[in-house]
C-alpha cells in the first residue's frame, strides 16, 4: 500500500515534462498533409542524392537507348531526344534543383536576418539606408531582371570568382566539371540578390518590437554588447517567423529556378535541373506532350510539400502567428 501511494504521489508531483520540441512536433504532426509533405520531400532528396549511385548510366552519355525511347525496364522513364536515360538525368537534375534552392534559401536568410536585425536594432542611418534599399529592390520587376542577369552571366558578363575548392566540391556533387559548376553557382548568387529583402523587412519589424521589451532593456542595463543582445535575445525570439519564411522561400526558389531554366536562362545544357528538363521537352511538346509530365511533377511535388510544411510550421512554432 505504502509503496503504491509513494509512487502515485511522485508521479503527481512530477508530471511528465513535455519538451519544447515535443510540443512543436505534436502540433506539427496534426497536419497530416504536412507530415506527408515531409515524406515526399525526403523521398525526393534521397532519390536525387543517393539514387544516382544505383544508376548504371552517365547522365550525359548519349545514345544509351533509342531517340525518344519508350518506357522499358532498362530505361524506366524512357530516353530523351539524344538517347540519354531520363531517369538518371532526373535524379542528377534533382541534385542541382534541390541543392541550389537550399543554398539560395539559406544564404538569403542569413543576409536577410543580419540586415534586418542590424536595421531594427541600430535604427538611424543604418535603418534608413538598408530599408530604402529593400523598398527599392522590392519595386524592381524581379523575374525580368533575373532573366537579364542570367542572360548576361551565360554570355560571361558576370565575372564572379569562386574559390576553386568550392567549384570543385559542387562539381563533384553535381558530377560536372568545375567550370560548369561555377555557372550554376553564379545563377545561385543572382537568385540570392533578389531573395533576402522580405525576410530583412520581417526581422526588422520583429526586432523593433523586441527592442523595447523589458528583458532587452535589462540586458542592456547589465552592460551586454549589442552583438550579444542581437544574437542571444533578438534572433532566438524571432526564430519562429524566420523559419516559416525560410521554408516558404525554399519552395519559391525551386519554382523561380525552374521558371528561369524553363525559358532557357537558368541551368545550361548539358547540365540539367528539373526546370531545364521541362525546357528540353518543350520543342517536342506538340508531338509527345507526356514527356513533360515527370520533370514538372517533381517540381510540383517539391513545392507543394514545402508549402504544406511551411503552413504546419507556422501553426506549430508560434500559435500567435496566423495568416
Amino acid at each position: 500500500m505504502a509503496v503504491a501511494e509513494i509512487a502515485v504521489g511522485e508521479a503527481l508531483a512530477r508530471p511528465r515534462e513535455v519538451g519544447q520540441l515535443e510540443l512543436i512536433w505534436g502540433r506539427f504532426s496534426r497536419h497530416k498533409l504536412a507530415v506527408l509533405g515531409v515524406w515526399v520531400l525526403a523521398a525526393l532528396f534521397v532519390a536525387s542524392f543517393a539514387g544516382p549511385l544505383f544508376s548504371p548510366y552517365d547522365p550525359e552519355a548519349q545514345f544509351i537507348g533509342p531517340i525518344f525511347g519508350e518506357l522499358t525496364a532498362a530505361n524506366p522513364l524512357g530516353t530523351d531526344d539524344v538517347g540519354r536515360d531520363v531517369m538518371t538525368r532526373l535524379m542528377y537534375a534533382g541534385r542541382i534543383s534541390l541543392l541550389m534552392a537550399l543554398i539560395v534559401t539559406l544564404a538569403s536568410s542569413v543576409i536577410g536576418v543580419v540586415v534586418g536585425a542590424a536595421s531594427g536594432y541600430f535604427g538611424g542611418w543604418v535603418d534608413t539606408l538598408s530599408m530604402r534599399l529593400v523598398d527599392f529592390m522590392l519595386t524592381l520587376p524581379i523575374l525580368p531582371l533575373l532573366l537579364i542577369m542570367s542572360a548576361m552571366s551565360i554570355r560571361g558578363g558576370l565575372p564572379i570568382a569562386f574559390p576553386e575548392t568550392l567549384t570543385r566540391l559542387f562539381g563533384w556533387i553535381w558530377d560536372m566539371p568545375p567550370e560548369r559548376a561555377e555557372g550554376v553557382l553564379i545563377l545561385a548568387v543572382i537568385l540570392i540578390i533578389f531573395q533576402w529583402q522580405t525576410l530583412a523587412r520581417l526581422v526588422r519589424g520583429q526586432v523593433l518590437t523586441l527592442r523595447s521589451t523589458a528583458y532587452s532593456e535589462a540586458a542592456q542595463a547589465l552592460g551586454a554588447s549589442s552583438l550579444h543582445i542581437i544574437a542571444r535575445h533578438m534572433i532566438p525570439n524571432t526564430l519562429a517567423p524566420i523559419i516559416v519564411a525560410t521554408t516558404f522561400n525554399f519552395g519559391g526558389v525551386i519554382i523561380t529556378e525552374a521558371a528561369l531554366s524553363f525559358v532557357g536562362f537558368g541551368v545550361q545544357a548539358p547540365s540539367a535541373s528539373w526546370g531545364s528538363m521541362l525546357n528540353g521537352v518543350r520543342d517536342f511538346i506538340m508531338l509527345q506532350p507526356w514527356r513533360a509530365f515527370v520533370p514538372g511533377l517533381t517540381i510540383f511535388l517539391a513545392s507543394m510539400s514545402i508549402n504544406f510544411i511551411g503552413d504546419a510550421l507556422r501553426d506549430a512554432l508560434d500559435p500567435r502567428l496566423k495568416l
Partner: protein
Amino acid sequence: MRRPGQYLDIMTNYLIRRLVESFLVLVLSSGVVFALLYLAPGGPMTEILEFRRQASRYPINPDDIERLKKQFDLDLPLWQAYTRWAFGLPVLADRPNRAGVIRGDLGLSWRVSQNEPTLNVLMRPLPNTLVLMTTSTLLALIVAVPVGVYAAVHQYSRTDYLVTAGTFLGVSMPVFWLGSMLILIFSFQFKQWGLPYLPPGSAVAARDYVVPLVGTVEAGSWFDRGLRLIMPTITLSLLQMAAWSRFTRASMLEVLRQDYVRTARAKGLHEQLVIAKHALRNALIPLITIVTLALPGLYGGAIITETIFNYQGMGLLFIDSLTQSDWPVALAYLMVLSVLTVGANIVADVVYTLVDPRIRVT
C-alpha cells in the same frame, strides 16, 4: 476645423509627392539596369560585330566599328550614354540627336527587328498581351470572389476545406507545368479521342483547321483567337485565382465578425441580403488594392505563359530580345513594367482612399 475642399489639397500634394518619388525610383532603377547592360563585358559590341560578320563575308574595317559605336552611343562614358538614352541630353554635334525615353524615344532595335524604333517593335505584340491580361484578371475574379465568399460563409465546412486545399494546389503549381499539362490533355488527348480540342500555340492560326463537332475554324477569326486564348488565360490566372480566393475568404471572415453585420442580422434582414450587401461590399474594398497591385505581376508572369503557348505577346518578345541580346528592346520592356509597377502602386493607394472614407492620405 477642416474647411471644405481641404482634403482635395492634401490629396493633390500627396499625388505630387508620390509622382516625384516614383519618377526618382524609375530613374534609379532604369539607371541600374542600363549600367548592368552597358558594363557587361562581351555585351552589345561583340554581338553586333558577330552579327555583322555573319551578315557579310567581308572583314570589318575599324572605321565601321567606330561608326557603329557612335551610332549606339557605345563610345560615350556610362553616365552620358544613360542621360542620352533617358533624356536625350547632352546634345552632341557629332551624332544624331536623341529624344530620350522621357519623350518616347526608346532607341533603335539591334536585332529582333533591326533598326526599327523600339517603340514600334514593342507596340506590335501589345494588343495580344493586353487581351491575355484582361481575360486572365476577369477569369480570376469571376472564380475567386464567389469561391472565397462561399468558403467564408460556410467556414469549416467540407467545401471550405476543399477550397483551402485548392488554393494550396494553385499556389504551389508551377505554371509552366500546368500549361504543358493543359496542352497534353486538351490539345493532344482530346484530338486523339476525336473530341473538340483546343489548338495549342500561337495567338492566331496560320491556316484554317477543323475541330471535331465544331467544324472548320477560319484562321484569324474571333473564334480562332478565342479558342487559342482559353488555355493561356487559365494558366496565367491560376495563381491569382488561388491567391484572391484565399484573400476574399479571409477578408469576408473579418467583415462577418463586425458589429454592423450583427446589427443587420438583428434587424431581421434576410441572411443573403446581409452577405451580399452589408458584408461583401466591405470585404471587397481591400481586394481592389490586391488586384491593382497584381497587374504588374500578371504582365511579368505573362513571360512564362506566353513562352509555353508560343503566344505572340510582349513577354515572348522580351525572351526573344534576351536570346538575341537586343538590349534596347529588353530595356524598353523593363521600362514598361517599371512604369506599370510604380503606377499600380499609386493607383492602388488613391483608389483605396476613394472607396473607403475611413482611410485618408497624409
